[in-house]
C-alpha cells in the first residue's frame, strides 16, 4: 500500500503509478470528508471549541506528506502539522475515529480530552502535536532533524508554517538553527493569503516567501499548492536532498483558505471575486479532472473511492459519537514522571482536621 517504492514505481505523474494516484485521491477525499463531518458535528455543538478547516488547501498536506517515508514503528520521517494540516495526520495513519474523538474532546481520544484538534502525538507513526503558539514547532522540529543528523539516521523532519507564522521569532530562530546545522528539516510555507483576517501584504513586505530562503542559505522552491502532484514533486525533491545530507529547505505553496479562519469567522474581509476565483481552482476537483483526462482513473474507480471514504467516515463518526466524555479526574494526568509529586494537585488543601 503506502511504501517507499511508490516514488519509483510508476511511469505516469511524478513517477507515481496508478495505485498511488488513487491513493492520493483517497486521502484528498478522506481529508475533505472528515472535515465536512467535523463541520456537521460542530454545528451540532459536538466539536468542543473552534473548528479550523483546510477547505481548498487539502492538496498541500496530502501531497507533501506523500513524499515522506511513512512507517508505523517509529523509524520513519517525522512531521508536525499546523492547524490546517489534518490531512497530513490521516496520511500518516491516524485513524479517522481517533481524530474525531480528539475534536469532540472524548475520554478515549488520543489525549484523553486534555488537548484538542490536530494536537496529537504518535511517535510510532511519526507525528508530533503542535502547540498553539505559532512558530514554536519549527524550533522543535529543528531539534528532531538535528537528532537524525547527529545519529546518522536517514530520516527527515517536515514542518508546516502558515504565511502568518513566518513572522514569528520562533520560526526564524528554529529554522536558522536547522539551516546552519544542515539538519534534514523541510519547512513548507503554506501561503493561503491570510493569517486570520490579515492579508500577506500586512504580514511581510517580501516579494514572495521563498525570498526568505536566501537569508538562511537554504534550498527553496515554490509551487501551486492546489496541484497535489506539484506539491508532491517539490516536497520529494526537498526531502530527498535533506535525506542525502544536503541540509534544510524552505518551500512555498500558493493556495487559498476558502473558509474563514475558523467556523465562527464569516470572513467578510474577503472579496467575493477572490473566493470565486479560488473555488474554481479547487484542488480535489482539479485532481479528479486530471485523473480522468490523463486516463489515470475511470469515473467508476473514483466513485468507488469516494463511496469507500464516505463509509469510512460514517463509521468513524459513529464510533466517535458513541465514545464517552472523560472522567473529571482525568485532569490529574501527570505533569511529572515521578508519581509521588502530587500534593499541590488540588484546588483546596485543608490543614489536618486535628488542628482545627
Amino acid at each position, binding site marked *: 500500500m503506502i511504501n517507499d517504492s511508490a516514488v519509483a514505481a510508476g511511469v505516469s505523474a511524478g513517477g507515481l503509478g496508478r495505485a498511488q494516484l488513487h491513493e492520493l485521491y483517497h486521502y484528498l477525499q478522506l481529508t475533505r470528508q472528515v472535515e465536512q463531518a467535523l463541520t456537521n458535528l460542530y454545528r451540532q455543538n459536538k466539536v468542543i*471549541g473552534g473548528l479550523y478547516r483546510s477547505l481548498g488547501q487539502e492538496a498541500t498536506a496530502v501531497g507533501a506528506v506523500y513524499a515522506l517515508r511513512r512507517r508505523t514503528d517509529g523509524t520513519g520521517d517525522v512531521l508536525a502539522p499546523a492547524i490546517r494540516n489534518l490531512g497530513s495526520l490521516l496520511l500518516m495513519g491516524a485513524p479517522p475515529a481517533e481524530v474525531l474523538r480528539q475534536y469532540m474532546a472524548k475520554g478515549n481520544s488520543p489525549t484523553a480530552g486534555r488537548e484538542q484538534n490536530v494536537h496529537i502525538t504518535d511517535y510510532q507513526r511519526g507525528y508530533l502535536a503542535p502547540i*498553539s*503558539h505559532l512558530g514554536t514547532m519549527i524550533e522543535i522540529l529543528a531539534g528532531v532533524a538535528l537528532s537524525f543528523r547527529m545519529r546518522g539516521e536517514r530520516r527527515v523532519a517536515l514542518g508546516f508554517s502558515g504565511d502568518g507564522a513566518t513572522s514569528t*521569532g520562533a520560526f526564524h530562530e528554529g529554522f536558522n538553527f536547522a539551516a546552519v546545522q544542515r539538519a534534514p528539516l523541510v519547512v513548507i510555507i503554506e501561503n493561503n493569503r491570510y493569517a486570520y483576517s490579515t492579508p500577506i501584504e*500586512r504580514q511581510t513586505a517580501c516579494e514572495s516567501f521563498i525570498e526568505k530562503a536566501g537569508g538562511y542559505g537554504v534550498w527553496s522552491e515554490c509551487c501551486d499548492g492546489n496541484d497535489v502532484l506539484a506539491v508532491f514533486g517539490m516536497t520529494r525533491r526537498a526531502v530527498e536532498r535533506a535525506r542525502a545530507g544536503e541540509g534544510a529547505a524552505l518551500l512555498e505553496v500558493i493556495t487559498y483558505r476558502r473558509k474563514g479562519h475558523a467556523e465562527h469567522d464569516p470572513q467578510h474581509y474577503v472579496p467575493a471575486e477572490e473566493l470565486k476565483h479560488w473555488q474554481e481552482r479547487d484542488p480535489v476537483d482539479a485532481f479528479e479532472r486530471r485523473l480522468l483526462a490523463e486516463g489515470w482513473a475511470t469515473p467508476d474507480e473514483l466513485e468507488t473511492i469516494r463511496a469507500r471514504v464516505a463509509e469510512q467516515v460514517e463509521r468513524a463518526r459513529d464510533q466517535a459519537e458513541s465514545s464517552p*466524555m472523560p472522567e*473529571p479526574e*482525568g485532569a490529574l494526568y501527570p505533569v511529572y514522571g515521578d508519581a509521588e509529586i502530587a500534593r499541590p494537585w*488540588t484546588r483546596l488543601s485543608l490543614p489536618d482536621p486535628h488542628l482545627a
Partner: protein
Amino acid sequence: MATVKEQTVRPREKPEHVRHTELGKPVTLLEAIREALWEEMERDPTVFLLGEDIGSYGGAFKVTEGFLDYFGADRVMDTPISEAGFTGAAAGAAHMGMRPIVEMQFMDFVSCAYEPLTNYVATSRWRGSGPVPLVVRGPVGGGVRGGPFHSQNPEMAFFHTPGLKIVYPATAHDAKGLLKAAIRDDDPVLYFEHKKLYRLPALRETLPNEDFVVPLGQARVHREGKDITVVAYGMMVHESQRAAEQLEQEDGLQIEILDLRTLLPLDDDAIVQSVRKTNRLLVVHEDTRTGGIAGEIALRVSERAFEWLDAPILRVTAIDTPVPYSPPLEDYFLPQVSDIVTACRYLAKY
C-alpha cells in the same frame, strides 16, 4: 507584496455600539472596555492600537469593531504575528511620546513578549530611559473550553517584575475606569480581560456618562462582611459572591469579598485592614496553585497582621496542570464555588 494603504474616510458619527453609555444603556464588560478605548482615543491623539486582526476584523473578540473606519489604519494597526516585535515597537513609540495599546489576541501569547516586557519595558524608567506608557491588554481565563493555550492566566509571569503594573477587572465599571487609568498612567500596564466575563449578561451595568477613572493600585470591597475575608479578582470575585450568598443563607456567615482589581502594585493596606476585622483569610484565584498570588498575600499578611489571624490562611485555586480542553476536565481543574464554601466553613469553625 507592496504594502496596502487603506483608504479611510473617517466617518463623522460615533457608531451605535460605542454609544451605549451616552444613550444611558447598560454595558457589558466588553462594551465597557470598548468605550474606554474609544473615548481615550478621541481624547488623546497619541493613543493608538496595535495587534493582530484588530483592524477590519475588529479583533478576535470584536473589542475594536468599527475602530478602523473611524480612526484609520495608523491608529488601529494590524500587525504581523510577532508579539515580541510589536510589543517592543510599542515601547519604542511610547518613548517618542505615543501611548500605544497592544492587544494580545489571547493573553496566552504574551509569553512570546516576555523578554521585552520584563527586561526592557519594566526597567526602562529605572535604567534612565524614561517611562514607557504602554498598555498590553487581552483576553485571559478559562471556562470557555479553549484548551491549554487559549485559557491561561499569565499574571504570575509578570507579578515578580518590579516596574510593571497588572490590572484585572471584575466588573464593567471597573473595566472602564481602570482601563482609562491604565492608558493615562505613565507606567506600563498589563490589563487582563476575562473572556468569560466579556459578555456575561449579569455584569451589564449602566455607567456614569461623565469621564471617570478607577485609580490603579486600590482594591475594592465587593461585599462587606465581618466573619471571613475572601480576596479574589476577575472571575473568582463572582464565584466568591455565589459562595458568600450560600454561606449567608445556609450558615449565617458574613463573608467579606475584596476584589483586588490591581494585582501589582498589591493593595496590601486593604487586605490587612479587612483581615484585622475578620481575623480569617481565604485567597481565591483561578490561576494554578503553586506560585500563585496567594503566597505573596499570605506573606504580607504575616508581616503586617499575624497577631490578628485566628486561623491559617487558606487558598482555593486551579490545580497545578495546564488548562484542560474537555469540559469535565476543565470543570475539575477550575476552582469551584463548593471549594470556597468548604474552605470558609473550615475557617469559620477553626
